[in-house]
């Protein structure tokens, strides 16, 4: 695929997922019992919505890193370098939260 088209496609996905993020807020249980859909009313729990939002944010970040920062095309050593760094950083951050939760 032509790189320009690829970048535009990534951009479209990024914008589309941002749109989903904004609209998913309507599914909060406190927001007047959810949204009327074809088969009834949908109201997701707070935890599920937060997970979806953070998952979408993670996906967007990954897309930017892979295609705009070109990690997908870099030597494996560099992408592994970044990945290992992120995994370690995430684990360390998680520990803080686990400790907080236990506390």
């Amino acid at each position, binding site marked *: 695929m032509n790189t320009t088209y690829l970048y535009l496609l990534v951009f479209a996905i990024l914008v589309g997922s941002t749109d989903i993020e904004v609209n998913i807020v309507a599914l909060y249980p406190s927001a007047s019992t959810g949204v009327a859909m074809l088969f009834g009313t949908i109201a997701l729990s707070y935890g599920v919505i*937060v997970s979806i939002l953070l998952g979408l944010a993670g996906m967007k970040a990954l897309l930017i890193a892979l295609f705009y920062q070109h990690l997908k095309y870099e030597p494996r050593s560099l992408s592994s370098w970044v990945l290992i760094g992120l995994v370690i950083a995430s684990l360390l951050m998680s520990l803080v939260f686990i400790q*907080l939760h236990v506390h």
Partner: protein
Amino acid sequence: MSQDILPPRIRRWLFTTNHKEVGILYLVTALFFFVAAGLLALTMRTQLSVPDNHVLTETLYNQFVTVHGLLMIFWVLSPFAFGFANYIIPLQIGARDLAFPRLNAMSYWFYLFSGVAIIMSFIFGAPDLGWTLYSPQTAIQFSPSIGLNVGAAALILITVSITMSSVNFLVTMFKMRAPGMKLRHMPVFPWAILVTIFMMLYAFPSFLAAVLLLYVDRAFGTFYFSSIQGGALLWDNVFWFFGHPEVYIVLFPAIGLIADVIPTFTRRPLYGAKYVIGSMIAAAIISFIVWGHHMFVTGIGLTSTKLYTVTTIAVSLPFDVMVIAMIETLIKARIKLKAAALFALGAIALFVIGGITGVYLASVALDHALRGTYFVVAHFHYIMVGGSIMGLIAGLYYWFPKFTGRMYNETVAKIHFVVSFIGFNILYFPMFLLLDMPRRIQTYAPDTGWGSLNSLATLGGFIFGGAQVLLFLNLFLSQRKGLPSGPNPWDGWTLEWSLPSPPPAHDFDTIPTIAEDGTYHFGDSPGLPNGAGYPNGSKIGNGYSHSHLEGLSAWPIVVAFAAFIFFLGLTIGQPNNPTTPVTFQPFWPLIADGAILGVIALYGYSRERFSVHEETRTESWPFREVPNVKLGIWTFLGAEVIFFGVLIGAYFFVRTNSPTWPEIGSLFDIRNGFAMTLVLLTSSLTAIMALVSAKIGSRNGLISSLLATFGLGVAFLYIKSTEWVYLGTHGVFSVASGLPATSYFITTGTHGVHVFAGMLMTLYLLVNSLKGRYLKGDHQAIEHFGLYWHFVDIVWVFLFPLFYLI
């Protein structure tokens, strides 16, 4: 910038970018701070020598304790080690300099000016609450002195210095090793520095974020550490997340150095060298999951307590391996007891005592009894001074002939060791027995029974301090009148000993190659087996050379000075006794001067014609195909991930601890967040299109893409500032109206500063692209800018849902 108006000698030291000279600058400055911190300690010991003593007031005593600790940890131990690292590591790995020489010089000047700032803090009432800066004591109502703000500025500056240095060393060691030098061929000292750098890259951004939050709490009246939801526990977590690895950050270079010294003087390779390196890596990883043992009494819960007990005991195991390896190397060896070897042996002995007493503190029951007492003071001084400083002094004697080309007086050096060792133990061992004496008390009553042990400790302090006079006199006189040392007075095994003493500015006439078995080869000469010594220096071949007056740059010192006065301006304008919670009153003239000078200096820095000599053949696994600058930027971005991670972590911390939080959409208009997200995502697209245009040689495409990126940056900041102004002026909330406001303004504000920095870069690229630069093969700058800009975009991708949608 014209540098010729200054005499060559001054020019050389002010503007040098040569790694050896920068290394000497680091060493001399670290020793200066060592003396300063030592004098503070001796005054404190004088105060404590007898009961009911009043040499120092309580406030002054607390200031001395705090600045002594800060100076020793941040301005002495690590910079001392990095002085050696600067000088020695390029020589040991067969490189001619560090990857980014000007950045290296800038790191040094940031370090120097940060040290000036911390000492200047005495003018404004120095920090007086211990080097751990525990919250909520740092709150403005408990510590109104602006000296603490100046101290915070100093800590921010030195953290910037350390981050630049870490990136530089990492790229150098991964990318610039001599041909054939696999990672496994690197001596233990570079390995120790490599592991240290990894820890620095994870630990210091956390500390930077913590100090930033501390500063904004004090300057803007935010609530991170002065609220119940954040408070002491938040500070403890972010501080000790950095603080415990910091112990190993200051220790590992000394261990690596000792691991180089002992084989040289025993004429035997280090026993189990690869296990020593493996142990360092293991200890480095575990060091990040032990921080909770500093918080046993904060009520972190039984599960956490158990976890941290186990990890703290576990972290001692790799150190056992290191010590056993060194002892095994010594068994039945005919060791040459030169001063360097004596200090190395002394350091091991003292470190063992410090390490064992540290394991006691892993026990929750003992920790409850011993924490906050002089037992802990003794324990960490056996590690920090006994293990680290003694080890670093071993390095000073070991490499002094290499630095100067002259021998020091061995007899005086041995006397220095004996007196130091005895003085050290008289100073610190009695503190183990002061089990019930609290730390950081200014004086005590006669009936406590602490008097005699304190008198003994003070006597030891003066013996230990006096012994260091021998060191300075010996080295000062020897560098002028000592006997010539020749290239390799110790029959050393590592590459630096193959060079003349001191080495020429360019280090190697011909870069050596390393055979599979680890032997070194110079040009066409036969390989020199390990242990045979290097009789001829590197006078083989007629390759590259340059003089000490080449490669000078004035910009590093100017950039660092600009940052120094900028931060000083941010801190010294505030009143000493604030009556209102919001106290930010900067000294605008200094801020303006710093900002203007900084922009000019950075522009000059980027425009300067400064060529870095890059070898065509280097050993650079695993990053053979990755350019140096790109690896450096990715490494820097890694540090940024931790920095923002801590800011976001602090937000989570206070939010999950808060019983209530404003409803979604009740504070911030989601449409604003959505608009800003779209703007930034679009700017990422235009940034990548700028790269595409540069690669295909489209000047118009490049200019219009950069212009669009800049314009979108302006749009983002415009929407952001409109939102801020709206929130502030409509009474919705201000920065000081509670934790939701605190976390929102500070986190998004920090991100906004990053956007602004990116816009300045865009502007610079735009100006150059108008002159026809960056087209076709010259597009690297656009690519590197993009890495940063996309990272800023990624951060916002997370901030948007965190602040606007959940």
